[in-house]
């Protein structure tokens, strides 16, 4: 089984880092993984996309992900301008940062999991220059929705990435989101 995950966020929210952390978590579990951004001009605030591909075994693929089985939306504003479900497998999972149940009607046909990552991040003080940093919280929600790796591995990967308090808070964000995320 290869998990192919696409992240939608906005420049400044950390989608690329989220994808990479997921891979790092997978690697600590002896799995194989890749992450990569869609490379265009990533301006602050503009929609960005990132990818992760996680599998039990090493494989040779290097081409982009066109038919993900998991789509993660870090910012629901994205939903207005990007068709986030493009290519999403029919049995795929959608994970959205939102406080409302379905931010958009058309998403109903997918297995959808929501989490109020913004609230979690804000409550933990995770914001930089006006931007709420939701990426680590979203990682927790992903793991809840699809058990790609354990939440412990994710938290470890986060703590290895940022030492000290920052790491701790971000790991906590992931943990909370892991608990709070819910399917619809």
């Amino acid at each position, binding site marked *: 089984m290869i998990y192919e995950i696409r992240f939608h966020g906005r420049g400044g929210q950390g989608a690329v880092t989220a994808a990479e952390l997921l891979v790092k978590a997978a690697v600590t579990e002896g799995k194989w993984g890749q992450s990569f951004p869609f490379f265009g001009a990533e301006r*602050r*605030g503009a929609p960005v996309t990132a990818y992760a591909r996680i599998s039990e075994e090493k494989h040779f693929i290097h081409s982009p992900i066109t038919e993900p089985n998991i789509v993660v939306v870090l910012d629901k504003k994205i939903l207005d*301008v990007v068709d986030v479900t493009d290519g999403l497998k029919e049995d795929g999972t959608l994970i959205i940062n939102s406080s409302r149940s379905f931010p958009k009607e058309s998403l109903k046909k997918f297995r959808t999991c929501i989490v109020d990552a913004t609230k979690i991040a804000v409550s933990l003080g995770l914001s930089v220059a*006006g931007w709420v940093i939701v990426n680590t919280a979203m990682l927790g929600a992903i793991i809840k929705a699809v058990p790609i790796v354990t939440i412990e591995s994710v938290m470890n990967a986060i703590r290895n990435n940022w030492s000290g308090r920052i790491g701790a808070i971000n790991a906590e964000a992931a943990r909370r989101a892991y608990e709070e995320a819910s399917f619809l």
Partner: protein
Amino acid sequence: MKRVAAISFPSKGVAGKTGVWRIRKPILDRQKCVKCLICWIYCPEGTILRKEDDSIEIDYEYCKGCGVCANECPARAIMMVEE
């Protein structure tokens, strides 16, 4: 006809509706505005629209919410509010 060379024609929104990029939004208080056009000349996006009478309007479809207008308005007639 076939376009052999890479020539491009002018078009608004080459990066899409850049209004979505905002996290804060400039709100104009017409009462306070003295029509000095400082916001107009400083807006990097050209999204402060200058009307015939030199009053201004904000083009939210493309305004990226940089906050320059609000920061520079001498009359403090523009406020940045969270989206």
